[in-house]
């Protein structure tokens, strides 16, 4: 009895640092690597001369920042798909909404430096002959308010959507189709000039953020570093949530929703909560993405984007937070390289990748890694297990 108590106490206290053998459990090493790379890349950009072989160009820094915000987006999808079994094919919508909120703030920062030189109205509004700001643009010149909107708008949308869908017990492929429809509807809406979000062209020509020039190296490095920090933060938070009893309930809902309901869990509340949490992570990712790439347009809502995210997660290994991040980084790196060599071939390559992963790596790259590790470290891990009969070793076989 006391033995089991202590083993559980030990597990919860040290899981952040140990978590070995459990997929997605390697939190501390991963965060350490992420932050070390961030610091090194930033220093290499800011401190080294351009002629140095170790110099990291600002282009690379921005690219890395972009990848990291994609990784965060993948994390968001993994939380809802990998752990709760809700295949959302519309997370691009939350990402884009977060991006638009950030974009609106950046637009307002342009002030009278626009092409038309209007002190308040963004260029596209002047072009449309609008005489004053629409009500929903008010307040967006305040950074804190814009950041609040980054979380509030996608969060509210996710809440309403989730509440309606989960309460009516829509699940499986029907829910996926609805999420696709959601993002497609938003795509069409944001294409319209009358919406007041710049229509087809979206929001662009940003000048500065919080007074810092967006083109300068230091701002770029800072944005990259903040993205890395936010990724680490959301990763740790998500890990903590998934280790808590709520995480166990979420997995229980994935594997047997009716059973969970008969145990007394109001499963729709749990699903809505997790959906909103996931949407907010996606929105933060979008808000970090926009100042780095310098544009947000309705293309971000396109259904294909949301499907791509799912592929990142599948490649990395769903149901493991680390897998989602690794998958997003690798696939996007491959995309950058591949589109440079053969621009037209990328979609085929992506499709082939998805088929191959589904057929041969159902647990993704993390699954392969764990298998290899288990294969090579078998005699050692056996003696390990006998001394501490941990939940982890059992959990390894799962997911």
């Amino acid at each position, binding site marked *: *009895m006391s033995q089991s*108590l202590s083993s559980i106490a030990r597990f919860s206290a040290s899981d952040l640092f140990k978590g070995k053998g459990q997929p997605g459990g390697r939190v501390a090493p991963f965060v350490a690597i992420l932050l070390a790379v961030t610091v090194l890349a930033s220093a290499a950009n800011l401190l080294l001369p351009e002629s140095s072989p170790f110099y990291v160009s600002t282009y690379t820094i921005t690219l890395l920042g972009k990848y990291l915000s994609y990784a965060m987006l993948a994390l968001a999808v993994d939380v809802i798909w990998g752990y709760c079994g809700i295949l959302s094919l519309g997370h691009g919508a939350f990402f884009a909404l977060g991006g638009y909120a950030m974009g609106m703030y950046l637009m307002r920062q342009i002030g009278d430096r626009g092409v038309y030189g209007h002190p308040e109205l963004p260029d596209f509004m002047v072009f449309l002959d609008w005489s004053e700001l629409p009500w929903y643009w008010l307040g967006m010149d305040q950074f804190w308010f814009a950041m609040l909107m980054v979380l509030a708008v996608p969060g509210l949308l996710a809440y309403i959507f989730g509440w309606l869908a989960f309460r009516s017990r829509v699940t499986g492929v029907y829910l996926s189709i609805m999420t696709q429809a959601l993002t497609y509807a938003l795509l069409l809406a944001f294409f319209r000039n009358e919406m007041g979000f710049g229509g087809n062209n979206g929001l662009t020509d940003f000048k500065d953020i919080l007074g810092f020039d967006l083109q300068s190296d230091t701002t770029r490095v800072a944005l990259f570093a903040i993205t890395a920090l936010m990724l680490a933060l959301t990763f740790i938070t998500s890990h903590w949530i998934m280790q808590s009893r709520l995480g166990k309930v979420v997995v229980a809902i994935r594997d047997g929703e009716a059973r969970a309901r008969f145990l007394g869990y109001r499963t729709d509340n749990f699903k809505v909560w997790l959906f909103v949490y996931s949407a907010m992570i996606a929105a933060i990712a979008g808000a970090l993405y926009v100042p780095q790439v310098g544009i947000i347009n309705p293309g971000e809502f396109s259904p294909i984007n949301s499907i791509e995210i799912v592929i990142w997660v599948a490649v990395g290994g769903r149901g493991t937070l680390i897998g989602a991040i690794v998958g997003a980084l690798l696939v996007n790196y491959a995309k950058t390289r591949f589109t440079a060599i053969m621009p037209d071939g990328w979609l085929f390559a992506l499709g082939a990748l998805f088929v191959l992963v589904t057929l041969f790596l159902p647990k993704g790259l993390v699954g392969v890694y764990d298998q290899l590790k288990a294969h090579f470290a078998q005699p050692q891990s056996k003696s390990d297990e006998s001394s501490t009969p941990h*939940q982890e070793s059992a959990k390894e076989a799962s997911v």
Partner: protein
Amino acid sequence: MSALENLTAEGKELLRRDQVWPFLMPKQQAVDVSHQVILYVEGLNLSFDGFKALNDLNLYINDGELRCLIGANGAGKTTLMDVITGKTQCDSGTVYFGQNHNLLERSEPEIAELGIGRKFQKPTVFEAHTVFDNLELSLKTNKGVMPTLLARLTPTQLDRIDQVLEIIGLKEQRFMLAGALSHGQKQWLEIGMLLVSEPRLLLIDEPVAGMTAQETERTAELLTSLAGEHTVIVVEHDMEFVRSIARTVTVLHQGSVLAEGTMDQVQNNKDVIEVYLGEEA
């Protein structure tokens, strides 16, 4: 004039200081079993596309009783459990838990919270979780989202889980994944999940399907020991098993009660021999 008087009287009634307005009454109340009956099922009707799954079904279960439901396939046993636990809506009739809880207007989680636990026909445990986690999730706790997020196991709860692990004989397998258990062990784990939640009423659907003779015997012992403190309703096809545990048996046939009594009474009942036992003989 009298209308006005009525109105003022009603108003006074509404403002009585010694009473709480009905909608302000706390919903969770102890189950009222002052008449020794814990479950009232009356005039239950349910049809699926013209097929009468339940046909004017009446059933009363006493507090602390161990009741067996038997009947051929399609007699409505599982459907009855579905209605009691809130999974299926019935067409007409009433289901009361104690005298004060109308189960028909409650959702599955609310019914579970009242203390009605259910074991499914096919063992359903959370296969990706360990045996221990399965039991932890079934504990009788506050099951809201935030309390669950911040939940920590208390020593009492740990004791309770250990106790149940002992009862269901899965102490050795506590950190094994539930998916890796044998069929019989899954059945036991699911019963354990019910026990750990300390229910008033247990609905157990085919507990010994797929169990060895020895396991069946232990299940019989367990269920008999549960009765008294808990109320147990068992649905089972295995007549040997039913005979070994049953005090009162209810025979369902085509959605209504055909006979009720001790095993011997039921077995000698003419109707029963005709429609059910007769087929087997």
